[in-house]
């Protein structure tokens, strides 16, 4: 595989393909490299900085998996699933219930992923598909209804009090050259990276993954080659729900407790990351999610006036608004053709 092909496959299309440019441009790549260098230099100079960077990456990889879930659905149906966070929260409660019944953490983890997948497919088939042709507004309102519904059901079954789950990675801590890293953070990073890689392999190299991409890009053309587009969209919802479950399950060890509101801020950060990445670009969503996690974590320490934790969400909102105004196509998105 040549370097060009590699870039092409990663979605960095300016370097990969000759005529169509859909990915990150050279300035954006330069910005990313500069950011990475900044983090590396900072980490070498201060161990606190290094620790914040690592935990920021861990935080960010949670945002990234939820952002990726949003992007999967957006690419397939041009709609944002506002219930994505609550779906993730609900499935995390299911995992909690499994551990209460005596399953080990990881057995509960994988069982939950399967349940989330089925639930995602069911949601798409039962409530999204019937309104999909009507309007974006109709789908948005249905997902908001789902948000409220899931919230209510979780409150009903499990109540509003925080719940505690076993820690998946234990409480041990590593010291590498004066830098302290918790195993929870490292485990969070590892699991989310593994999830993203597995998904990427699936979409890139399997027939089903290819058919799903084709359905998202050109449904009419996909139908003509025999792809069952409606089922592919439903599978997309299934994968998104499973990814959301991963982000929910990874949020829990970071917050130490389970509560019905736990995914609401994460959803906003994930929205910000998805928009920053261009809303259509999976690579963009992952990189932006991680970058946002690190940025907010560092801001909490070195932000001066902005380091108040009450300002984390408003800062994320400001980032989102800024991106939408300056570069609505995001860092990795296709430039939208504005017709007016």
């Amino acid at each position, binding site marked *: 595989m040549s370097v060009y092909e590699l870039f092409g496959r990663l979605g960095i299309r300016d370097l990969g393909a000759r005529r169509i440019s859909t990915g990150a441009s050279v300035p954006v790549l330069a910005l990313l490299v500069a950011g990475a260098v900044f983090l590396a230099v900072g980490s070498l100079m201060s161990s606190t900085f290094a620790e914040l960077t690592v935990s920021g990456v861990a935080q960010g990889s949670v945002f990234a998996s939820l952002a990726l879930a949003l992007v999967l659905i957006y690419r397939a149906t041009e709609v944002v699933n506002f219930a994505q966070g609550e779906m993730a929260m609900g499935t995390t409660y299911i995992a909690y219930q499994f551990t209460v019944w005596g399953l080990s953490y990881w057995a509960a983890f994988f069982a939950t992923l399967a349940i989330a997948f089925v639930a995602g497919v069911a949601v798409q088939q039962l409530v999204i598909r019937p*309104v999909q042709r009507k309007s974006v*507004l109709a789908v948005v309102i*249905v997902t908001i209804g789902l948000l409220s519904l899931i919230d*209510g059901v979780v*409150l*009903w079954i499990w109540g509003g009090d925080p719940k505690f789950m076993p820690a998946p990675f234990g409480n041990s801590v590593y010291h590498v050259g004066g830098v302290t890293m918790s195993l929870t953070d490292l485990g969070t990073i590892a699991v989310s990276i593994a999830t993203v890689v597995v998904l990427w392999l699936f979409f890139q190299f399997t027939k089903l993954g290819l058919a799903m991409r084709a359905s998202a890009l050109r449904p009419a053309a996909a139908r003509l080659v025999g792809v069952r587009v409606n089922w592919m969209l439903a599978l997309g919802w299934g994968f998104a729900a499973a990814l959301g479950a991963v982000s929910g399950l990874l949020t829990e060890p970071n917050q130490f407790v389970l509560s019905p509101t736990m995914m609401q801020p994460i959803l906003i950060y994930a929205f910000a990351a998805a928009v920053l990445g261009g809303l259509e670009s999976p690579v963009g969503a992952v990189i932006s999610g991680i970058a946002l996690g690190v940025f907010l974590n560092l801001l909490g320490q070195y932000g001066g006036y902005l380091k108040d934790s009450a300002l984390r969400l*408003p800062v994320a*909102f400001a980032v989102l608004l800024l991106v939408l105004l300056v570069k609505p196509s995001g860092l990795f998105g296709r430039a939208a053709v504005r017709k*007016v």
Partner: protein
Amino acid sequence: MRAILGRLAICAAAAVVLALLPFTLSGLNQVLAARVALYFIAILGLNIVTGYTGQISIGHGAFMAIGGYTTAIMSADHHTNLIATLPLSFAIAFGCGVVVGLPASRLSGVYLALATLALAVSIPQLTLKFSHFTGARNGISVDGTVGYLWLYGVSWACAAILFVVAWLVLRGRTGRAFRAVRDSEVAAASSGVSLVLYKTLAFGISAAFAGVAGSLFVLATNGYAQPDEFSIFLSLYILIGAAVAGLGSLWGVMGGAAFVALLPNISQSAPLIRSIPVGGQDIAAGLVVVLVMLLLPTGLAGLLQRMALAASALRRRSGIPTAERG
């Protein structure tokens, strides 16, 4: 002409009913009726931007918070007359709406929905940051208390005034421009409708309505403005109310408002839902919205319209002459 007279008659009848209603209600039910009025105002406002102009906003709770805190701060710190704070809320929320709407006019569809959602989540956080003015999590209380009847009267008076304002705005040239933007931005722009102007205007007006609704909301919540009262769910409920009402119609708004305001009571008394100790309200709201979108995509207004059409078709078939529609 006859249609306008008919509508005037309906309005007059509604006004008489609303004027007499408080004398048959207990104090708490008067507050409940006042809550219907404030949701009526908020949904009316959202309808202007979402139903008529086609811009999805999930952030109207933020403008309600702005209006609510305006009333609370002016009253608590400056002892301003409560009624005098209402036009002030209108003006400040209008200003904020324009400030948000100007950049937001570049966005549409899902992007605008995301930006407004983020706004709705951020505003309550900002009240924590500026705790000197807002009293942080404890909130801030208005100076003095208001009576139930006073609340009822003021709320419905505001609702009536703003309903007329909305009607005047939407019936003429501006309303046509809004609908043109909703139906096709490209066509609107090429016919000389300024997208920036009308999208921003719609956003400002609707934010102003939300601001007044927010002031009344604070007065109806024992005069307390608290960040938790203005959570994201407030924005969602307004949107849910608008969807239930049927977007793009003024007449369904009352039904949507009643649904949102009475939701806690409905969920406490409805069979099945009643037996759910916590979360029943969220379940009821979610179920209703999903079912309405699946079964009645045009909301209550669409249902009424279809029933009217069916009735007139029935009358025509049985040979009874009907009034001209127009």
